[in-house]
């Protein structure tokens, strides 16, 4: 089972057309192995990107060099997935008890 330990989902909100174009260019930068959860649309529309743990620092440095602000939407994706699984298991267990 593939895990996502340390993967973060970061949110970038482009402030102007220049930032928009710079963020758009990330889509073609295969070295960061980004997974766009929410693609580039307009200025002020959030872009959400899953970043693998091994490219996290280099991506953040890249954005800082470009003076593009970002926030962390999901700190550790695997923790959220573990929670989801626990919740599902608990629901199944509860259903079994009920039946």
């Amino acid at each position, binding site marked *: *089972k593939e895990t996502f330990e340390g993967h973060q989902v970061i949110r970038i909100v482009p402030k102007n057309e220049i930032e928009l174009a710079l963020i758009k260019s990330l889509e073609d930068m295969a070295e960061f192995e980004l997974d766009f959860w929410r693609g*580039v649309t307009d200025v002020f529309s959030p872009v959400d990107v899953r970043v693998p743990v091994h490219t996290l620092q280099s991506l953040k440095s890249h954005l800082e060099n470009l003076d593009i602000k970002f926030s962390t939407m999901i700190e550790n994706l695997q923790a959220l997935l573990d929670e989801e699984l626990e919740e599902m298991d608990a629901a199944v267990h509860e*259903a079994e008890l009920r039946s």
Partner: protein
Amino acid sequence: TDSFDYSRYHPLSEIYSFQDMLVAENPNLVSKIVIGQSYQGRPLNVLKFSTGGTNRPAIWIDTGIHSREWVTQASGIWFAKKIVKDYGSDPALTAILNNMDIFLEIATNPDGYHYTHTSNRMWRKTRKPNPGSSCVGVDPNRNWDAGFGGPGASSSPCSETYRGPSAHSESEVKSIVDFVKSHGNFKAFISIHSYSQMLMYPYGYTRTPVKDQAELHQLARRAITDLASPYGTRYRYGSIIYQASGGAIDWTYNQGIKYSYTFELRDTGLYGFILPASQIVPTASETWLGLKVIMNHALRNPY
């Protein structure tokens, strides 16, 4: 299906069982059609809600074409139950079903959905291997014959938006294409995705406005207004909010299905595709209000 837990996520086998139960409980309203097979041989089931007649004008709804968007499959299950529960008591839905059929494909990408439960929760695409590449799968919402190969889709098999080797190369897509063509009387086609709170109409592959732009825009505004009524969920709406070629609703519109829309369901701003199960019923119930506006408009505005 009364005791089915609508507020949790279910594996594929339970979705298949749910569909069979719903048909068994409502034989005069619901039937199951298998429109094809996925790459890995799973049935592509479509629930048909019909009160009779032959080849009535019809409405198509699909959920889960992107497998990791779990709230969409869960919403599809909720819609199915809602339809059988409300037929006969909700005047708008009753009028729709007395004149039109509704087709609902809940697990549009079953291989991908199964894979999200067993191997990779973040899987989006189909599961067909790509010759010459170690990367698997095609984005089934870039695989339609509408601006296929244009901007907003990737030619790289390793990309999450890989368009595939040719239009309709994916059986999950081709099966819908064949079904829609052979039916020939679809009047609305609504494809449901998550997450980013948008309601979009064609086109995604070109900036050329569709000829029905004004009507589709106004209808979208009405749909999102009703959708917002229970919880205040605010949607963006329009055409080409983001560029994407090879998309489903661009193809359906070009086939003459005027009321072609894509929903992107709610975004709580914290979870993305990992929307907590407690959000399923609120998401589905608000979306249902938007869907009803579009379905009702399709009923009242025959073409």
